[in-house]
Each structure stands twice: as C-alpha cells, then as structure tokens.
C-alpha cells in the first residue's frame, strides 16, 4: 500500500536524521558497561547531559576519547610494528560506529599507522558532529582541536 510505504520511509528518514539507532546503541553499551542499580534514572541522567551538551555546544564525553584510540590501536597492533592492516582498520571503524558495513574504503596498499587512524577517526567524528549539531558549534571545534594536543 502506498500510504504504508511512505510512512515507513518517513520513519526511516526520521531515524537517520536524528541518528536514533546510534544513540540507542551508545545508551545500551553504557548501561551494560556501567551496570547501574537503577537503569532508568541513569539513562535520564545521561540524556540530560547530552541535552545540555547540545544546547551549550560543550564537547560531550563520548565513549572513546583519544587515549582510548591509542589503546585500541595498540591492542590491534600486537606485534608492535606501528601499523595495522587494512582489514583491522575497517573493523575498528565499524566497531566505533564510524563507518557502515558496505562502505568502500580506499585501500592504498600501505599499512595504516597510528596517526592515519587517529586522523580518520577524528575526521569522521567531526562529520557526525557537523551533521547533528551544526557546523559552527563548539563541540565540533573541540573535536577538531584535539588532534593538535597529541
């Protein structure tokens, strides 16, 4: 039925526009990781923080910050070569929710170094920030500044 089809499309667009699935995934991961006594209250607290972060443009403490990215890289690079393979790189981006399963990433034949990995993660996080919060907002700028600290 046409009416049903268009409502479904509306719903899908809504989900994408507000990145609802990523948000729910993030909330569930936090709940399972922290395992608070009162899950509802904890969820409400996180959502309030998110709201404030959006309104004031302060950087929101996402699950992964830069020390985590370096730690993640080290875990994948078990032989301490300083580089990871392309497959590992793509899997890591998928785990962080920064790339979709069927996106085709350029494999330029060289192994991925820590710097390249970090810059790609930052670039993608910035893109997402830009899409949801508006390009001029503070959190985007903070995200962009962070690579300079390392």
């Amino acid at each position, binding site marked *: 039925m046409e009416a049903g089809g268009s409502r479904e499309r509306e*719903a899908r667009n809504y989900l994408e526009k507000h990145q609802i699935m990523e948000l729910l995934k993030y909330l569930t991961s936090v709940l399972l990781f922290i395992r608070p006594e009162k*899950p509802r209250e904890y*969820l*409400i607290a996180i959502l309030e923080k998110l*709201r404030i972060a959006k309104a004031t443009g302060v950087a929101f403490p996402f699950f992964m910050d830069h020390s985590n990215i370096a730690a993640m890289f080290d875990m994948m690079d078990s032989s301490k070569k300083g580089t990871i393979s392309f497959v*590992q790189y793509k899997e890591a981006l998928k785990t962080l929710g920064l790339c979709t399963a069927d996106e085709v990433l350029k494999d330029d034949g060289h192994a991925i170094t820590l710097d390249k990995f970090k810059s790609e993660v930052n670039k993608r996080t910035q893109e997402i920030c830009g899409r949801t919060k508006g390009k001029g907002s503070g959190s985007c700028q903070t995200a962009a500044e962070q690579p300079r600290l390392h």
Partner: protein
Amino acid sequence: MDATTAPHHIPPEMSQYGEENHIFEIMQNMLEQLLIHQPKDPILFMINHLQLDNDNVPKIVILGPPASGKTTIAMWLCKHLNSNLLTVENLIAKEFSSLAAAARKHYQINKRVPSMQLVRLIQDRVSEEDCVRRGWILDGIPETREQALMIQTVGITPRHVIVLSAPDTVLIERNLGKRIDPQTGEIYHTTFDWPSESEIQDRLIVPVGISELETAGKLLEYHRNIVRIFPSYPKILKVISADQPCVDVFYQALTYVQTNHRSNAPFTPRVLLCGPMGSGKSLQAALLAQKYSLVNVCCGQLLKEAVADKSKFGEVIQPFFEKDMAVPDSLIMKVLSERLNQQDCIQKGWVLHGFPRDLDQALMMDSLGYKPNRVFFLNVPFDSVLERLTLRRTDPITGERYHLMYKPPPTTEIQDRLLQNPKDAEEHVKLKMDLFYRNATELEEFYGQALTINGDQDPYTVFEYIESGIINPLPQKVP
C-alpha cells in the same frame, strides 16, 4: 578490539544484568514511541518517556458479542488493575468537549458514533494524565476493521486483546435475562448474577433492545465485523470462552493480561533441574543440551571425571570416593566453578543437575555469582521412582542397560545374567528420596521463581513443559 582474528568475549555479567533489568524491552519500547510520535527533539522526548515509566501499564482491548459479559469483565479488570475504563458511552458523555457533544447528537439520532469522531475522542482520552499513568481498558472498541486501523494509525496499540466467544444460542438466551441498575450502571442477570439487596432488585430496569430478534441482528453484525478485526492483532489476541461462570472468565482474563509476551531479547538459558533420584533430571538435561546446544553439567559426573583424570582436584576428591563419604561442599563448588567459567558455558548457557542439594549449597552457588535464570522442580511420586529405579538392570558382558518394564532384554539368556547396581536397591533409593525431601522445601523457598513440573509422565511430555517454561517469560504471580 580486533574481531577479525579473535572473537570478542562478552563478560557474563553484562548478559545477566541485561536480562534482570529488561534492558532490551526498555530500549524497544522507547524506540517504538519515538517512531510513533517522531518528535522534533528526540532527547527531550526520551527523557520524558523514561520518567513516565509506564511501559508495563495495562493497555487492554476487550471485544465480544452482545451478552458475552464484556462490560462486566472490563469493569472487574479495571477495579482489579486500578486502571481506566473506556466505553463508547463514557467517551461521549464527556463534558466540556465540543467533539463529545457532536458525537452525542449523532448517537441520539443514529444509535452509533461515526468512526472518525470516536477515534478522535479516544485519542484525547488516552493522552490524559490518568490514562498515561494507570493505563486503559477499551470495552467494545474497535467495532469494525476501519476503526481498528484508525486507532493503530494514531499510535494507540494495546498490549493484550481479549475476545470473548460463546455459541449464539447461549448468547440470545442470556440476553433476555439482562437487567441494568440505572444508578450505578452495573449489569445484572436474572439467572446468573442476581443482586442480593432488595433495593437494587427493585431499581432494576429492562434495557432496550434485548428481544431475540434484535439480539440476533446484533450478533450477525458482530460476526461480520469481528472476523476482520482479528488480523490486526496477530500475536496479542486471546479468545476466551464466555460460556462458563463469570469468575472463571475473569481469572483467565486476569492471568492473560498479566503475562508478558515473548520478546526478542537475547537470552542465554542457565537452567537448574531439581528433583529426587529417578525423576528424570539427567534425561531431560541431555534432551535440552542436544536441542538447544546447552552444556550439560552433571555434578556427580564432573566429580567422577575429575577423579578419573587424576587432576589436582581429582586427587583431593579420591579419598572421599574411596571411603564412600560425601565430598565437602567447598570442593564441589571449586570443581563446578571451574567448569562453569569455561568459555563454552558462558557463551552457550548450561543445564545443571545434581547440585545444589540443600540450602547451604544453594547459597554458596548464589554468592559466587552462578544464578540460574530458570529453575525446575520435577515432582515424581515415590512409587513411580521405585518402579523406575529398582527395575534397572545392566548386562555385565555387553554393558548394555535395560529396564525390566520399559526396555526389557530381548532374550532370556541375557535376562538370566543381568545384574542390579547396588545403588538402585530399594533401601538406598528410599534413603536418597528422604534426604532430598528434607531439603526440598528450603530449596523451593530459595528459588522463588521456580516452576514445578509433574515428572510422572513420558519424557517427551515433560520435555515440552520444560521447554515452554524456558522459552516463555517467567510468569508473574496473580495476587
């Protein structure tokens, strides 16, 4: 991190936490509401939704032919669940609403309310504070498929739909005896539900439209419509026969409404089977392990394996076996922990039997964090146990096990040489049964959510009962 070469191990605490707090269901409900309302500010909406905490509030639709007792059941459920009743009458009786006034006018002329207006009235009513907080019960709405679809479109979805059904002849006869109390609106019946106070008896009036012809006409229309409403509520519909005493219908409706439906939440079964010797625990555990790929953990077997492997635990346990003494609890617990901590148990789930046998063991297991999420007690009467165990025989030459009643040996030659395991002797069985029953009451108290199953049936029937106990959500106790 690197899921390409080594698989991720999700710690069991996470899945236990998720199950206990129904995280999946919370998220699913939130997503449903988000998609229905599609608010501009999703985060504020989510905060408000979580604060309401009304996922488990009753949302019931009761449908049925005239004279089936819908309104009576609906009113009883309302009182019992402390919820709000919504009927066509009380929706249009609403004051201070132009919509309701228009609907009233229409009703007075045509004896029915147009669907559009009705759905709007329902929408307004359901979004009021008391319905949001305490839920709602729709009595006799939707009347047609059109209404059902419209209600769905505005986002009002019931969680339980009860349809009363009875043969037409019964209903026509029943309708003749219907009487209404004009003051309270309660419905009485000349045969089935006659009020005891004489002042109510005097007040009762005969309602309009209960002659046989009129009832038959209404029934025809009802049958035409109800068939097309069924497909709108596929998994949440239950048909209850109205051709039984009111109390029975009520209790069936109440139990149904208080059950949760199966959800898609990830679930790793950790099953505990308790029961006396000979109740069929090992057989059921083996069947479960085979069908659902669970790990079959038999406590006695584990200990024997440890001794046979001459592992470090085995060497400590061996003297107890030699002297035929009970192995101390702490030692058993250590061997068990080692097995339950292995990756295959954590990932696939386990079926445990033979432990714990008393409250201390149960407390120890609980304190170490091994909490089963389904506990079954298999009840078998003493005589059946004796029959099952004392007739067991083993063939010393081939090693084949027989049972004189259920699996008799094929030739008399084999039968002559069969031997009985001393553990299957009657006195020994009696001893073990007594031991079990002494501790059984404490265990049943400890595992409050345990399900009791009649073990005195053929194994596949018992297996089906156990299966349904595992697959369906745990029942909530009716107060």
